[in-house]
């Protein structure tokens, strides 16, 4: 296939704009079940899902998700050797935030990540590295914003099982790219909070299991969040002829400051006739503070519906809740609408409108965010 001038220019222009930008490169959890694939690993190189797309995922990016185009790396202009897979995520965003009488206009580079996999069929190294984005100034110098969220060695005996060691996001919950979602931010899965660890997983015809044991990052310059050791477990079962998935999950983590035990459920249900996917997650967490500190019980919840309204268009709505102490009437809630448009392979426009607040929205704030996403 010939490469058009436009398809060369777009990544270059975006890369230049972004010479100063990272955030999350996760997956689109709505695509599981809705696009005829039963598990995330079907479209991603990582058997745990997320990040770099495999050949099937790239093909789907052109034909199924968007209204056309070539989803291959560099639009098919260059085919990397089989031992080398490369990709990337570039995002720029503009946002208007309001709270009370105050409003704030932001325009910022959001993400500039490169994803690579080097190795053979069974043994490989995977890496995600980029420049951290930032909505507010002053940001640290560019070199200090270099960060690698994931770098690990993975062994795959076959397509159904894997072992990996290094830094990676444990399989847990709905892996939304939105790192500010309550189920990520308040459960220890925020931006650059990926721990170091060893993990493994197995996928079968109708189920999959993933487990991770993790330790704190060796230095604070590598990330953020609580430096804890612990384990996670995620087990998913697909039912109803691959129109529904139900998962149970658990996490136990210990740090100098606290001990946390989390249990939760994740569910997805696809209605093919209406072309609507429902997805939800509910987690309960017990947190004990070090020394003679108290114990509190927390709740994190996410519920949403996404309609595939037309070829290349997704319209979604979601509600979120974070309750830091179930014995007290204290909560942070959010409701949001998402409109995502995939005009061609590699390109996404995403409009997010969110209303959030504490308690019964006693001090509400709004966020209107428009992002342009280009993936290599």
């Amino acid at each position: 296939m010939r490469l058009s001038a436009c398809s060369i220019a777009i990544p270059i222009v975006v890369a230049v704009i972004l010479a100063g930008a990272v955030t999350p490169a996760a997956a689109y959890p709505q695509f599981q079940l809705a696009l005829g694939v039963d598990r995330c690993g079907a479209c991603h190189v990582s058997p745990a899902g997320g990040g770099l797309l495999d050949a099937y995922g790239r093909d789907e990016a052109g034909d199924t998700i968007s209204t056309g185009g070539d989803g291959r790396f560099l639009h098919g202009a260059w085919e990397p050797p089989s031992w080398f897979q490369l990709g990337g995520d570039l995002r720029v965003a503009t946002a208007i935030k309001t709270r009370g009488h105050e409003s704030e206009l932001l325009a910022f580079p959001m993400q500039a990540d490169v994803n690579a996999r080097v190795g053979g069929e069974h043994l490989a190294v995977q890496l995600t590295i980029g420049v951290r984005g930032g909505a507010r100034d002053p940001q640290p110098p560019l070199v200090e914003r270099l960060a690698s969220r994931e770098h690990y060695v993975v062994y795959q005996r076959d397509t159904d099982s894997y072992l990996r060691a290094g830094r990676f996001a444990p399989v847990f919950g709905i892996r939304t790219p939105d790192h500010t979602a309550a189920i990520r931010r308040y459960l220890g899965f925020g931006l650059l909070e990926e721990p170091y660890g060893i993990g493994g997983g197995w996928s079968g015809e109708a189920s999959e299991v993933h487990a991770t044991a993790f330790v704190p990052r060796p230095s604070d310059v590598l990330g953020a969040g609580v430096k804890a050791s612990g384990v996670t477990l995620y087990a998913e079962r697909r039912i109803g002829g691959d129109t529904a998935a139900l998962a149970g999950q658990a996490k136990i983590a210990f740090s100098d400051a606290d001990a946390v035990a989390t249990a939760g459920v994740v569910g997805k249900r696809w209605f093919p006739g209406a072309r609507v996917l429902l997805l939800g997650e509910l987690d309960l967490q017990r947190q004990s503070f070090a020394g003679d500190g108290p114990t509190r019980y927390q709740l994190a919840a996410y519920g949403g519906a996404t309609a595939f309204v037309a070829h290349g268009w997704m319209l979604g709505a979601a509600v979120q809740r974070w309750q830091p102490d179930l014995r007290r009437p204290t909560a942070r809630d959010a409701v949001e609408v998402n409109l995502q448009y995939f005009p061609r392979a590699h390109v996404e426009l995403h409009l997010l409108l969110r209303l959030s607040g504490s308690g019964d929205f006693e001090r509400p704030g709004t966020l209107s965010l428009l992002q342009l996403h280009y993936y290599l």
Partner: protein
Amino acid sequence: MKALALVALCGCLPPGDPPPPRWSYLHTAIIAPSCATASCHSRLTALAGLDLSDREGAYTFLVGTICGQPPRPIDAPRNYVTPGSAETSTLVYQLRGADANGRPYRDVMPPDVPLPASEVALVEAWIEEGASCD
């Protein structure tokens, strides 16, 4: 309906002590998850020169004295926390979104989702009790 669900859930929970206005609790329960995120006041980014990621360091940044040590003449007082006086502490204005006279305060924190009133009250109680580092 919401109240019923809350009662059902909370009814199963063992009773607990109210959250203590102590720095060790405040930092772990409120400051770290709400403020020390990767893009804000973490070691990585330290917006406004503030790194609130670890307990002792965050205390020094906010209060202006070294955790566990009495104030020394050479310690320049930060203007975020005035021990014993929540009403003159900038941190409280930022968390409330209003100054001591109730006027809207700029630089409201956190900028995305405000802290619940009960958590702001806990921070105020800690300051009123002397903002110690225990």
